[in-house]
């Protein structure tokens, strides 16, 4: 039962984060929000008896993907049109 409630909460959290990711003006925040979705998802995977997937999603989905996003965003910010 606790699991169910937790999963529902996490799911709601994922959806909220998805809206943040889509609608937040600041791209950095949006990227982090998408990383949080992955993190939440990896928690769900743990509940669903999939530790392998959970580790992968956490390390690749939330850490590395976000890192790549940041590298690119950083680059874009540095290449301002005014320069």
């Amino acid at each position, binding site marked *: 039962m606790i699991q169910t409630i937790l999963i529902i909460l996490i799911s709601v959290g994922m959806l909220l984060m998805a809206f943040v990711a889509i609608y937040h003006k600041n791209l950095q925040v949006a990227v982090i929000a998408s990383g949080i979705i992955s993190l939440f998802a990896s928690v769900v995977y743990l509940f669903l008896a*999939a*530790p*392998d997937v*959970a*580790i*992968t999603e956490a*390390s*690749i989905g939330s*850490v*590395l993907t976000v*890192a*790549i996003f940041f*590298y*690119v965003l*950083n*680059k874009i910010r*540095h*290449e301002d049109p005014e*320069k």
Partner: protein
Amino acid sequence: MKILKNSILLVLLGFMTWMLFNLYKDYDSRDTLNDTARYYAEKGPDETGAANLVTSVVVTYRGLDTLGEVTILFLVSAIIGLLLKTENGTRKTAMRASSEFMITAAKLLIPMISLIGVYIFVNGHLTPGGGFQGGAILASTFILLLISISRNKIGHKVLELTEALSGLSFVLIGILGVILAAGFLDNKILGTGTFGSLLSAGAIPIIYSLIGLKVGAELSTIILELNQVQGKED
């Protein structure tokens, strides 16, 4: 105008939801394993010798998929390099000055985290985790390395070498499977060993380590490429 467009899109999405709901309607939770999964559960441990059945599926039964996916990362790292090549062909690395603290921390942390990564993929056939996860962790240490050490010379060469050699070995082991065992990527080219020990499960630990190295190298290359680009106008 924008509202109109958005409402049309919403209607479209509404239909999409309806379609997916129809897919959901027929979804029913399972209470037994189907034949395929039952085979993995019953025969898997003996055939492959791996305790982690996901690993046995990923590395052996569906090894060709894994080969494909490793290839994807390999491709992506190559493509990014090609796409971001600057006009005059020279590339500069980031020259951000790092604080002493960062360097010290990195020196401490990097070996430790790398070790964790290696541990994860070496034990892929026993515990959760494996090549991808370990590789990803290796790549994270690489990010640390980039942040902490300026003008690092850990350049493409090492990464490319790791990438190519591990990829080649992967393919070669696959071919050995054809020659020595029942088919491409068959892990039984080595004995399956004692169930549950590190040196067991035939070629799985080797393949998974190679995958780990390769994934790590590839993800690092991707990051390196993106980082090098960053240095262009600094």
